[in-house]
Structures are given as structure tokens and as C-alpha cells.
């Protein structure tokens, strides 16, 4: 059983965290205008050789050049568009399920031939989304464990992480490694 990726959205419908493990489809970092710090650690395209901080302006303008010139044609959606699509799909399915049920029914997962998406929502509006291979049963319990474990410890109880910000995500080293450890310790992680 393989886990592909994890997204976390806050109550403002923004993606505040992203991590992936066995994902193989390409993904591009978001363009400079839509870049939000503290969400993901997607590496920049290989033509940039510097390893300086992501806030280095020289590097950012080089990023723009690559996308404009396109001599290294990057495939895949830019991250910000992809995360918005994921959120949109979840919202649409949720509304559809609610409409068809006639009451507040929780939509929990969907499956395609290639992957299965699991959703866990908290009352405070945080949405935890996990993509895994399609042959698993519900992994909602994993998302709940992440919520009551690493999220509570390294985000809620960490005063240096700004929750509810419209400007940045909740990425920090402790949280990222705790989530990583948790996933790898699952008996089903391949």
C-alpha cells in the first residue's frame, strides 16, 4: 500500500501544508506571483543551481525566466493551481453529497482507477486530505491521528507558527519530520 501525498487546508480555503512521498506525476513550483511561503518544499527546476534561501530575489527572477523561456519544459500543474483543484473537487463532491442526501452528510473519500482520496474535516474548518493507492480501506483514521498528534503538538502548541494567516502556511521542520515519521511507521507504508 502506498501513500502519495498529503494536503492540509484551513478554514479560509487556503492550502497551508503539502507533503508527498511516493508521488510520481510531475509538479511545478508555483509562479512567483502566487508563491506563498511555509506550505511545501517542492524543489525548484534543475536549471537553477544555487541553493540559497527561497527569498533570494535573484533566484526568484531566474525562476520566472525558466517558465517564460521554457527551454526546460516543465510538465505538470503548478502547485497553487493543483491545490486549488483538489480543494474544488472536495468542495463540489461535498456539496453534491449534501444535496443528494438532503441533510448534512459527510463525504469521506473517493476513488479513481489510479488513486484514492481520503478526507477528514475538523469542526474548526481544517481539512486533511490524503492521496493513496486505490486498494485500501478508509485511511481517515490516519488523518485523525495526524490531527491529534503532530498537528496538535507542532502547530497548535507552537506559538511561532501563525495559524489562520492568509499569507503563509504552517510548514516547520518539527511538524514535517513528525508527519514523515508517523507515515513511515504505519504498518502499511510501502
Amino acid at each position, binding site marked *: 500500500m502506498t501513500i*502519495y*501525498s498529503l494536503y492540509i487546508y484551513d478554514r479560509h480555503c487556503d492550502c497551508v501544508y503539502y507533503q*508527498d512521498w*511516493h*508521488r*510520481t*506525476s510531475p509538479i511545478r513550483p508555483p509562479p512567483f506571483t502566487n508563491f506563498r511561503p511555509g506550505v511545501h518544499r517542492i524543489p525548484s527546476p534543475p536549471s537553477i543551481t544555487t541553493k540559497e534561501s527561497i527569498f533570494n530575489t535573484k533566484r526568484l527572477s531566474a525562476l520566472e525566466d525558466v517558465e517564460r523561456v521554457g527551454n526546460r519544459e516543465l510538465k505538470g*500543474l503548478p502547485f497553487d493551481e*493543483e491545490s486549488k*483543484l*483538489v480543494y*474544488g*473537487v472536495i468542495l*463540489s*463532491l461535498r*456539496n*453534491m*453529497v449534501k*444535496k*443528494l*442526501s*438532503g441533510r448534512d*452528510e*459527510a*463525504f*469521506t*473519500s*473517493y*476513488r*479513481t*482507477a*489510479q*488513486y484514492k*482520496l481520503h478526507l477528514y474535516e475538523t469542526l474548526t474548518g481544517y481539512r486533511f486530505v490524503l*492521496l493513496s493507492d*486505490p486498494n485500501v480501506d478508509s485511511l481517515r483514521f490516519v488523518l485523525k491521528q495526524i490531527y491529534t498528534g503532530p498537528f496538535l503538538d507542532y502547530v497548535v502548541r507552537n506559538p511561532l507558527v501563525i495559524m489562520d494567516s492568509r499569507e503563509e502556511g504552517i510548514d516547520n521542520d518539527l511538524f514535517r519530520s513528525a508527519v514523515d515519521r508517523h507515515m513511515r511507521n504505519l504498518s502499511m507504508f510501502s
Partner: protein
Amino acid sequence: MTIHAVWVINKAGGLVFSRTYSDTLPTQTLNATLILAGTLHGIHAITSRLNPITGKGGLESFEGENWGGKIWMSLTGIKLVVLHSIAHQGLDELMKKIYEIYSDAVMKNPFQTLEMPINSSLFESRLLGLIQSVN
């Protein structure tokens, strides 16, 4: 397993057939069902783009707490949607049979225009028979 409803959606995302077979889900106006089917068609397209691994494939099934839905798309692009109870053994068989009934009653009917709403009584009666044998 109980079947709650069956929809058929054409290539463009329009609803060409919809029938409910149980009381579990509240009835919807035709307009509401049309919109929901269109939404599902859009979601099917987007989900294939969100694939974390290479390969093709759109939405196949989704689940709520008390019921779920299964979507089967033929190579020609029409989608069969079945809303069902959580227990669903034999659902794949059922969808194959629905496709057979569709190809017989709808495709072989010379008066049925493709992509248009289906109003074939043969289709409805055979489908009703099949669902009743399951419910």
C-alpha cells in the same frame, strides 16, 4: 445491497436518464439532478488531472456515511452512475448488465438520437426489472 438511483450522462456532461429506485434519498427536482450530473461530469474530468502517479483515469467511486456512488465510463465517453447503499457486492456485475441493457434498448433503437435524453420504455422496463431483482 440496495440501489438508490441510476443516472446516464452523455459525453458533454448532460443528463440523459435518471431514475430513483428507493426512498433513502430525498427526491430532487429534475433541474437539481441536471446540475448535480453536470457537476459530477466536471469532477470526473478534474480528478483525472490530479493523479499523483502517471496514468489516466477519472473518478470511479465515492462514499458518504450511509451511501455511495459508482461511476463507470465507457470507451465512448458515456457515464453510468449508480447510487447505492454502503454494502455493494456485485456492483461491477450490475454495471456491466446496465451497459448491456443500454446498448440493446438505446443504441439499437434507430429512433434514439445519440446524446439526447433517453425515453425508451424498453430501457426503463428492463432496467427496472434488473434493479428490482437486486433491491
